[in-house]
């Protein structure tokens, strides 16, 4: 075996703004700030703890992890279906969802493709850290080197000697049987990539030595929770080393690790993933418009509309570390050639920074094409859908579904002529069972009526001037700019973000019993100037993030009747493999 030493070094911490987070000055500042906050601030309230979670990995988490382990040239080529959205987040659904036989098959196809790419002649020299003595037979040492490094990163923990020996033996037997060392590696790598500890994030608890009555996540589970939250990927070598050293539960060490992670460029990946989930951007995977009504709303627009908002979010919250609330009033964004026609701007090549003029009705995320188009009908705008989305996605409120026994007589007059959406949705208010909900959605959405169902500006509808007045929780405004400011000042806006961030980070939706924790975290967020990285830091350093309750039923004996390898039935006949 010859060691070739190709594996990429772990990504170094790099402070936003060009400073090195790992420098003593920065680390000390953060540490001191953390300790001061802990001394002077309100103590974290105790809340009933949730048990450890078991979550299915998402396509992006799988891909991000592979990118770290094998580099970005590995192409997944397959998207795993999303879990059901639960309490506003796909991430919360991932903690409940099972995997079907079809999904396992999908995982296996992806695994096979990845394994073949890794051992391919063009990649093996870079991705396998050693060269076998002969490529036509087993080389246990080289296989062991590759598999110990790779499995540790994929399974997010070191393998036991017995586990590693099993994998090496399997690779060796396959290599000798097929006369190909690399086929042996590929076969074992494929099985690793579909193994439950790769496809599921399985958290494990241990007694807290500081309080043996309580449980906490073990170090590897804590490392995974941190990494999937902050980077949307499995822990890297650095984080696993800290977990292996036993120091991750040391508060000071944990604070330093978190600071390094927050300063890493990978934070942008994590923040993008969070907002893609919170803003329900999975809707873009199937969004389309009536091409006869909106001919300029192309597939490229769909992709770029999503990207525009995510670029804006990352720039505002991570790179510039600005106030979260100002995302809804900012005039700064990014523009692409595909989006330019909808924004009625001259097209430029690639993504360019763009500032809407001060007199523009475009202000903040609500006036992005992503929000306007995804909460509209295929052929027209929808004040109701837009208002509902604002309340549910950004304020974490629940707008009840329409009642089943609606009397549609108000809409049933063939002679009715509604010059604009305002008059059309006003018909809802004639029915008391509809009016309750439409009063809390439509006045919001009507302020965005200057933008059609594809998000393009208009000042009239069917020749009639558009009235964009409205209100949000009693605050009246006359247009989209007023709505943006009203939303920006709404206390529910940062509170909702905190609720979603905590749910996303911890892996399950906040419950009513978490209310005091929500209030505490929201107060901290306010104190920190509504800066997202600070909120993330507060969350991951909270006791609630790493303390857990016992899993219900964990002490129950395993059902004895399920054999490890069931009898296989082929063509209706029992088959003994």
């Amino acid at each position, binding site marked *: 075996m010859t060691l070739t030493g190709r594996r990429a070094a772990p990504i170094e911490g790099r402070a936003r703004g060009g400073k090195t987070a790992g420098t003593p000055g920065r680390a000390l500042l953060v540490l001191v700030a953390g300790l001061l906050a802990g001394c002077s601030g309100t103590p974290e309230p105790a809340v009933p703890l949730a048990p450890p979670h078991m979550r299915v990995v998402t396509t992006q988490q799988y891909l991000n992890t592979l990118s770290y382990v094998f580099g970005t040239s590995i192409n997944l080529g397959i998207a795993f279906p999303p879990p059901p959205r639960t309490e506003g987040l796909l991430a919360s659904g991932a903690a409940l969802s099972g995997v079907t*036989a079809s*999904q396992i098959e999908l995982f296996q196809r992806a695994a096979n493709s990845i394994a073949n790419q890794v051992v391919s002649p063009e990649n093996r020299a870079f991705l396998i850290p050693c060269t076998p003595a002969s490529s036509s037979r087993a080389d246990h040492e080289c296989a062991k080197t590759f598999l110990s490094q790779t499995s540790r990163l994929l399974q997010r923990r070191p393998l036991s000697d017995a586990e590693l020996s099993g994998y090496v033996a399997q690779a060796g037997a396959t290599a000798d049987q097929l006369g190909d060392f690399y086929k042996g590696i590929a076969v074992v790598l494929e099985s690793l990539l579909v193994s439950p500890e790769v496809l599921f994030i*399985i958290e494990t608890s241990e007694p807290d030595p500081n309080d043996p009555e309580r449980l906490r996540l073990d170090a590897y589970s804590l490392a995974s929770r941190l990494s999937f939250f902050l980077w949307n990927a499995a822990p890297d070598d650095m984080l696993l080393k800290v977990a292996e050293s036993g120091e991750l539960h040391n508060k000071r060490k944990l604070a330093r690790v978190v600071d390094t992670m927050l300063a890493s460029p990978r934070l942008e990946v994590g923040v993008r993933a969070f907002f893609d989930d919170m803003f329900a951007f999975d809707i873009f995977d199937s969004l389309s418009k009536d091409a006869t009504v909106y001919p300029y709303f192309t597939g490229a627009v769909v992709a770029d509309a999503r990207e525009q908002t995510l670029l804006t979010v990352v720039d505002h919250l991570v790179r510039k570390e600005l106030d979260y609330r100002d995302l809804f009033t900012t005039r700064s964004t990014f523009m692409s050639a595909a989006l330019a026609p909808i924004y009625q701007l001259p097209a430029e090549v690639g993504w360019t920074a763009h500032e809407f003029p001060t007199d523009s009705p475009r202000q903040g995320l609500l006036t992005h094409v992503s929000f306007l188009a995804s909460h509209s009908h295929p052929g027209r705008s929808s004040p109701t859908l837009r208002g509902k989305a604002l309340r549910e996605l950004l304020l974490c409120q629940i707008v009840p579904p329409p009642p089943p026994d609606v009397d*549609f007589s108000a809409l049933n007059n063939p002679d009715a002529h509604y010059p604009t959406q305002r008059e059309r949705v006003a018909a809802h208010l004639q029915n008391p069972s509809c009016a309750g909900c439409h009063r809390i959605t439509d006045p919001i959405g009507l302020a965005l009526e200057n933008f059609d169902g594809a998000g393009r500006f208009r000042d009239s509808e069917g020749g009639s001037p558009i009235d964009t007045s409205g209100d949000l929780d009693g605050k009246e405004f006359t247009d989209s700019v007023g709505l943006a400011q009203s939303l920006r000042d709404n206390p529910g806006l940062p509170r909702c973000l905190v609720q979603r961030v905590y749910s996303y980070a911890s892996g399950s939706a906040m419950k009513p019993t978490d209310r005091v924790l929500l209030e505490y975290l929201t107060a901290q967020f306010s104190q920190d100037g509504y800066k997202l990285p600070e909120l993330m830091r507060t969350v991951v350093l909270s006791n609630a993030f790493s303390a857990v309750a016992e899993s219900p039923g964990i002490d129950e004996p395993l059902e004895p009747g399920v054999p490890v390898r069931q009898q296989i039935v082929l063509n209706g006949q029992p088959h003994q493999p």
Partner: protein
Amino acid sequence: MKKANRRAVLRGMLNGTAVTVALPLLNCFLNDNGTALASGAPIPVRFGTWGWGLGMNSEIFVPNKIGADFDLPEEISALSSVRKHINLITNTTAFRDSYQNLCHYSGWVIARTGAAPKDRRDIRGETIDVTISNRIGGSTRFRSLTATATADVRSTYSYVDRNTPNAPEWSPLQFYTRLFGPEYPDPNATSFTPDPLVMARKSALSGVLEQRQSLMRRVGSEDRARLDQYFTGLRHLEQQFQQRLEKPEPIAACRLPGEVTADPAMGQDQDAVSDRHRMMTDLMVMALACDQTRVFNMGYTAGFASTIKPGYEKPHHTATHEEPVDGELGYQPMSSWFTRHAMADWAYFVDAFTKVKEGDGTLLDNVFIYATTDHGYARTHSLDGIPVFTAGRAGGRARTGLHIDAKATSPTRVGYTALRLMGLDLPSWGADSNNTSSPISEIVV
């Protein structure tokens, strides 16, 4: 001399290096007349579902005549070519019991699970296709196949449990690749080369299965159920590998479909939905003919169907609520336009099964399809007057060509009939008011 057995022959050939088997030389691979599987096993009976959204307009949908040779009112006139192959059961009532009428949800959930849901995330137990798949789906390459014409991976009528939907195939290109791509075990290939690499992959997968016990000890009871679901899927994957090591039985009805090289348009306009539906149907039908699965689901449109007619501003769902009833016609013309297209595509779906000759008849003779919708009259979200279709003769166990008045009984009676026809000898099916032990006797032979 001991008579040659094809499985023994192949296993012997695989014992060592791979060899290519020239199949025409081995007569034991074929049966005498090509009308059954080579093993002599009877042609399997398959089960499938079809789902469309937003019900119908009873005045122009419900036939006047009960029984055979029923009339075809204008909204279902497209069914003339398949009338003899289907049953139309009208006037079913989905009982919501003490729960709310969850618009565009309660109706189909009751029809497919037997129980009224308490909220929009609720699915009690599993959907009927999963129950049947657990019974008959274990021996084929795929336990079941689920596809949608909506182009939306979230749009499905099939659930393993409330948190685990069976995500549908939404891209014809991906569906083709999954079915007939490089890993397709062509039962009629003239040669067969057992691949020792597949055996090695299967062996490695078996090692993963052995992690079950240790993992189960680490998690609570709810997560154990999820892990069990995962390991069940993994065992099926292991079985897929095993199947690839054996030459499948030749199947006369099986023909490799034309290659799909690109997806059609992914919009929501009616033509795009119909195009995707046709492509998915053709692939699904051939997957069944080639015995790749025995359980299947096709979602045509969702309850909140967003299908559009280009240039008309209201998608189908919105139209059912906002479009005025035409005073002269007595119904909502645009809403009916969408429903008529759904019926035309349902006819295409059924007819596609008749194009495949199987035994002395067609594939449709050996299939039973259960087609459901969410409402009777979508405009008012009614849970009564809901129509249900069936198609196919379930291997001679079912009659077809009938219009049946369910007399306000639950659609679960049709589901229960399907379960019985597929060999599940259950005393009853469904919960509370939707529980039934009374199949649709007119259908059962």
